[in-house]
């Protein structure tokens, strides 16, 4: 059990990094609370696996420190940190039975006898592996193997955090659900910090209390799934989370209004903008609505309407920019050109991709 602190941490794989682009993980400080379920979300190559490997000790950071509670573990090797990691592909020891696999980390730490057996059986029961305990591990299916990998982490009573590196990659879709609920259940049973790396937003949003979104080595937002949805701190978060992603439109901000081409939307506030920044506004498709009579709105020419079952998505163009809007249930087919607006609270202003309050 531990709080994990990354203090002024940065990592580059190449020697003598200078430009920000040289860094796989850009300098930042984060605190991961004890017992939290975190998801590290981002596109491939954004540095999320690097960050995970720094926490587990497989990679030593170029700068900064890693603290478990108040102990500095930056220079400690993996085996001396109380960390377990589950990898993309199941790692099992082919020659051993499931029981031996689960007991392996305990045996390596000098434990023997009945205590080991009891612990192994407890974990096996928790992971529904009891029936397979005495089978050779290599004969099992991918999801069972992944459970064994997880079990080898859980079996150690001292484990402070379990790290998952896209653990469901090779699992059949219908078993993904099952395994994901199992993870949630385990997180509730054990008071262990869990950090889950994924590029799948569904996985991240269903698993985590806190989602950490990364882009190009930088953490762009940490927040609850709801916060990420309602107030994305970065245009990338808006675009990456949600389906369809947030509408991002270039705009000019003046006197409490956003000017998009000829249209003006009321903001009800006057954000302080840095000079010479690229200004955009973002509106989630869920919050787009037809403008009330007399209300100012965006002129949207409708191109098509997609029916995806739960709701319908309007795809249109406004001032040369693509735009999506989710139509309210039971709404009539929209006309070819319509005016759309959104409540001021749901219109976010971005300067150089970052949200301005």
């Amino acid at each position, binding site marked *: 059990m531990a709080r994990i602190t990354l203090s002024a941490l940065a990592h580059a794989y190449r020697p003598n990094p200078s430009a920000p682009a040289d860094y796989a993980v850009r300098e930042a400080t984060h605190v991961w609370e004890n017992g939290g379920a975190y998801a590290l979300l981002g596109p491939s190559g954004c540095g999320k696996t690097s960050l995970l490997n720094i926490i*587990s000790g*497989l990679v030593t950071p170029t700068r900064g420190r890693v603290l478990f509670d108040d102990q500095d573990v930056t220079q400690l*090797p*993996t*085996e001396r940190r109380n*960390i*377990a*990691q589950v*990898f*993309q*592909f199941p*790692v099992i*020891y*082919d*020659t*051993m039975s499931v029981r031996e696999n689960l007991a*392996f*980390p305990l045996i*390596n*730490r000098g434990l023997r006898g009945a205590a080991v057996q009891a612990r192994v059986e407890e974990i096996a029961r928790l992971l529904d592996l009891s029936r397979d305990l005495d*089978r*050779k591990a*290599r*004969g099992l299916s991918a999801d069972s193997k992944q459970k064994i*990998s997880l079990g*080898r*982490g859980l079996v150690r009573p001292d484990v402070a955090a379990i790290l998952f590196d896209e653990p469901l990659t090779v699992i059949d879709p219908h078993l993904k659900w099952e395994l994901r609920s199992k993870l949630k259940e385990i997180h509730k049973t054990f008071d262990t910090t869990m950090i889950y790396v994924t590029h799948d937003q569904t996985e991240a949003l269903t698993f985590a209390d806190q989602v950490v979104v990364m882009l190009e080595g930088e953490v762009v937002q940490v927040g609850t799934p709801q916060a990420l949805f309602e107030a994305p701190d970065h245009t990338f978060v808006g675009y990456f989370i949600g389906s369809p992603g947030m509408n991002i439109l270039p705009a000019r901000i003046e006197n409490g209004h956003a000017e998009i081409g000829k249209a003006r939307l009321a903001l009800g506030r006057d954000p302080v903008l840095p000079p010479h920044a690229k200004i955009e506004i973002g509106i989630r498709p869920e919050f787009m609505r037809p403008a009330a009579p007399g209300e100012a709105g965006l002129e949207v020419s409708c191109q098509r309407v997609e029916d995806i079952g739960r709701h319908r998505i309007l795809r249109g163009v406004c001032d040369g920019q693509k735009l999506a809007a989710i139509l309210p249930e039971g709404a009539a087919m929209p006309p070819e050109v319509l005016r759309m607006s959104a409540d001021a609270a749901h219109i976010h202003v971005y300067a150089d991709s970052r949200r301005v309050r």
Partner: protein
Amino acid sequence: MDKPFTNKAWLLVLPVFLLVAFNAIVPLMTVVNYSVQDTFGNNQFFWNGIGWFQELLDPKSQLGERFFDALWRNALFSAIILAIEVPLGIAVALAMPKKGWGVAPTLVILALPLLVPWNVVGTTWQVFARSDIGLLGAALNGLGIPYNYTNDVISAWATIIIMDVWHWTSLVALLCYAGVQSIPDAFYQAARIDGASRWAMFSHIELPKMRRVLLIAVLLRFMDSFMIYTEPFVVTGGGPGNATTMLSIDLVKIALGQFDLGKAAAMSIVYNLIILAVCWVFYTVMVQADGRAERERAT
């Protein structure tokens, strides 16, 4: 629907059949033919039935004693070089760089001995190990270690064994290296997280992943070492005495030295059958081990 059936298809196999007949079946049959006859030259042959085989397989007869002595030497030689080359090859494979600039030079250096023809290896070592002018031989003698492969059995055996180890350990190492390279990094990382010792990593991760290539390496090295001819022939000529006379060398002595074609033919057949039998056992063990793994996966 009935498939059209025609015997004419057999004609298509004919060219291959002829090719195989002329380069394998006919020569083999010649050997079988010789093995049941005796000759006193002048192309005169006499029927001898299974006489040569009886003599060959009777350890009390002169020919039998000679055969079993050579067979025993062959078996000992194969056992020794396998006992050295397999562990050494694994050790080399594990010590080789896994990535970076060192990989290519290491592979080239390791592959070099494999590219040298057998008789060149033999000649090189024959000179290298000479006790009067050879760098190795003269140096050993200079250090006061008695070494002369022309009159000392231990020296002769040591020479051909070290020569074979020099020539062929690379093969085992390269095959094992391929096995080690196929292990994803995650396995090592997981093992470190599990607190596994270096030995545990080797026995639970590396060795199981190397098993298949290792069996192939053992099979190749066994066949090759059991058929060894050129190197001892070039270096020691089978001596001192008969100390390094392997089956193949003896075979040539009987066939071309004494022109005892019948005896030599019988011996070739038995020799061939021994190698076939051992390889068949190896192969069966390999296939069964794989089949067991497959079945475990399927259930």
